[in-house]
């Protein structure tokens, strides 16, 4: 399928200046047996305050895309601009939430949350309060001096989210953050994420392989083709906010989910 420009599908009115603008973005991994093209000429724009999910089969390059946007992986060709400036390596404007919580077991929750502040050599005293506030917001204020192994998986991933938010980034990059959680916890985390997002109005790029999750959370969903990853289609999810779990049962939700499924099924392979 030919890559489709994201903004050409966008029917809504002016969204202001894009926070991320990618043009002809490609990533080829060099391996012993030659090169593997993970991403091939991606064009998209993501606007300030938007919640955008990226969905695709495993191996379609969606995690690669996230690492490129995080500045953790250099891209091969094309250009990526973050807030109008070319992206060169990690920046304080973007924070990553990984698939696993990646908490350091020798640090208390509070010290885990403050780790990015330490790494960025920011004044610790001015962030302690916001770290405590954020931990309270996710219901973990009683656990600030506990260690990660004393927490459940869902609680650990909440700490990981708080650790990303404490830096007050403009952009949250989330790589299947709830993929390892059970279905019930996952729904709770989705609701909590929406609540936090609606308060903070961060821009979120959310990698997932769950169609329901993508539709439930997002303003727009970027569906990717199988390898090499290109953009199959960008779908605007025009569901009212705030969204509740009951909106999953609405007919419009079902139509979006069916549309995404047919797009992903068209890529062949199992999904």
């Amino acid at each position, binding site marked *: 399928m030919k890559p489709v420009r994201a903004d050409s599908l966008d029917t809504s009115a002016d969204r202001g200046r894009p926070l991320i603008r990618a043009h002809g973005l490609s990533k080829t991994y060099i391996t012993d047996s030659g090169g593997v093209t993970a991403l091939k000429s991606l064009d998209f724009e993501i606007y300030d305050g938007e919640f955008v999910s990226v969905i695709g089969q495993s191996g379609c390059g969606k995690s690669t895309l996230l690492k490129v946007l995080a500045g*953790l992986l250099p891209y091969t060709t094309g250009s990526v601009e973050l807030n109008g400036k070319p992206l060169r390596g*990690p920046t304080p404007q973007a924070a*990553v939430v990984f698939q696993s919580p*990646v908490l350091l077991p020798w640090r208390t929750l509070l010290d885990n949350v403050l780790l990015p502040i330490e790494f960025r050599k920011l004044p610790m005293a001015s962030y302690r309060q916001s770290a405590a506030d954020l931990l309270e917001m996710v219901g973990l204020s009683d656990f600030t001096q506990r260690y990660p192994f004393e927490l459940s998986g869902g609680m650990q991933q909440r700490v990981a989210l708080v650790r990303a938010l404490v830096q007050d980034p403009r952009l949250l990059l989330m790589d299947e953050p709830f993929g390892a959680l059970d279905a019930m916890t996952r729904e709770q985390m989705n609701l909590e994420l929406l609540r936090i997002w609606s308060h903070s109005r961060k821009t979120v790029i959310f990698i997932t392989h769950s169609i329901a999750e993508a539709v439930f959370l997002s303003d727009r969903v970027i569906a990717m083709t199988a390898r090499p990853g290109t953009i199959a289609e960008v779908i605007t999810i025009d569901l009212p906010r705030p969204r509740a779990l009951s909106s999953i049962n609405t007919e419009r939700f079902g139509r979006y989910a069916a549309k995404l499924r047919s797009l992903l099924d068209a890529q062949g392979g199992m999904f």
Partner: protein
Amino acid sequence: MTVQAVDRRPVDSRGLAQEARPGVLRRYPQFTISPAILVALLVAWWFATDVLDTPPYIVPPPQDVLRAALGGLSRSPWDKASYWYHASITVWEAVLGFAIGSALGALLGLVLSHWPILGKSWYPYIVGFQSLPKVALAPLMVVWFGFGLEGKVFISAIIAFFPVLVNMMAGYQAVEPERIELARSCNASELDLLTKIIIPSCLPFLFAGLGVASVLSILGAVVGEFVGASAGLGMLLMQYNQAMEISPMFAVILLLGVIGFLMNYAVGLVERRYCFWAQRANAVARTVWVRP
């Protein structure tokens, strides 16, 4: 007749079976079962000598060994015939060797892992040197350093070095790549990456190496004393051996075992202090559900 399992667990007011508290044997095997094993071994020993009549120059009876041990230990530490005097020398050699060998092993392990070009270029020599029987170097130590402390510390350090080096390199390899990505995504400096992510992540491996090294360092010191020394438990062993005094030999060997145990225990104490998180996580995973 069918046998039916009956749940005999005590039931609380809500009719729910209470989780049984594990018995004293399960909670403190080191204070209950371990002493019982010791008693059983002593009885077997006594049985072998007293009842089976094994000649005392092969296996001396336990009471003779105990008498020799008490004789050696009851003297003042400044008496050159006392075990305390010789043990303090051997322990000092072993502790110095352990400290030097494991510090170098940990440091070199970190350097070789962090700069892969160094690691790859040095690897064949490290494997080659590791496969050398290090004790074969002991006679050379006498030539290099004479009968003093240095030779024993040197051999002890070389023997302690490798388990720490190897474990440190294994620990570095085992650092979760996502921890490094997390640090990089926060623009962590190279020094912060090393001191706040990589080195703490390596600690469980490092302590496994240190535990092995602590015991091996005593081996190094004793072997060093075998080939030439004026004092130390290893030298004492050689003297008793030449005089065919078997009971004190056994006493010294047992004393060496106790010293090795204590050194390993000391490493364990430090590990519990600095690596509690790895042990706690393991303990949670290994929690055994006790059936009454």
